[in-house]
């Protein structure tokens, strides 16, 4: 089976999902959390807690922050991805607080470099440089959607 992307979230520092794109989601949102907004909030809560948890459980760091203690962006170790029996979730956080989450099928490797390249080539190019984009707010930029589609299909991640 070739790799397949399921959906894609972009969050800002305030936890607002500023972009959501999906390609394959047979179980609709209403069967899960009930609404798109709830789904996005839960996703944010998930990786927020996971990051805190990873930093606390870090066996290498001499000074470990207590669970729940506020940290700076990127402080402590970061989590990259987790795999379940159905999908794999990849996470990348920029120092400016923008977070990218990509859900894919299980048979992909480490997509950290791909997410970094996505940030560099597509996000900065199509979103940040768009004069109508207000940093931190939700946006609807069709060029970004098509840019992401093109980027992923070039890497063989989308079944067309």
């Amino acid at each position, binding site marked *: 089976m070739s790799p397949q992307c399921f959906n894609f979230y972009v969050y800002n*520092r*305030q*936890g*607002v999902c500023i972009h959501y794109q999906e390609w394959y989601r047979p179980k609709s949102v209403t069967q899960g959390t009930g609404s798109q907004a709830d789904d996005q*909030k839960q996703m*944010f*809560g998930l990786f*927020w807690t996971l990051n805190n948890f990873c930093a606390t459980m870090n066996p290498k760091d001499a000074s470990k922050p207590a669970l729940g203690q*506020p*940290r*700076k*962006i*990127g*402080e402590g170790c970061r989590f990259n991805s987790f795999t379940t029996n159905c999908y794999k979730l990849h996470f990348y956080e*920029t*120092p*400016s*607080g*923008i977070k990218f989450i990509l859900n894919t099928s299980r048979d992909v490797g480490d997509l950290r470099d791909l997410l*970094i390249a996505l*940030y*560099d080539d597509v*996000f*900065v190019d199509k979103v*940040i*440089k768009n*004069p109508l*984009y207000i*940093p931190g707010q939700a946006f609807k930029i069709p060029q970004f959607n098509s840019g992401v589609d093109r980027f992923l299909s070039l890497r063989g991640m989308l079944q067309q």
Partner: protein
Amino acid sequence: MISNEPPRQRLIINMPTAPGKAPVPVLEQMNSEIFTLTYGSLIRQLITDFEDLDEVNKQLDTMGYNIGIRLVDEFLAKARMGKCSSFRETAEVIGKQAFQMFINVQASVTNWSSDGQECSLVFTDNPLTEFVELPEEYRDLKYCNILCGVIRGALEMVSMDVECRIIQDMLKGDDCYELRIKLKEHKDEKFPYTEDD
């Protein structure tokens, strides 16, 4: 009428870096003279529109801030930077990599305060002020205030609250440009949703 959308200019950086230094990413190039002249005419227009030099300085700072909040993502993406571990490292990165990348200027970081919260960025080359002479009646104009705004905006996006001011200005007879950056607060990430949500 000047719109509040700041002009976006990028200079190419193609200088070979010394061995052992962090590689500087290369952006699209543009002619530095066009950049200088555009900035100069922007200042001229601001002075005509606002007439009060304090207002002009404030506008430059706001425009710089608007540039900085967007510029930081481009810099982070191109430089593939992870998080800087301290304000000291941040200042070094601004002076050596960011200034080099965007305006082709090597700034050195000096004059650290005893608590490590304040420092100076010192440079002598400045593409914004080439060919510029400041007449006596504009002595209060902070010609490079846009740079202060850019630094403030960019660092705010990485949760550092800073204050940036111009201490020395070659247009006013000093022998270098000095920007003093003071870290007011390095903020933590707070969980944005309250219990009730």
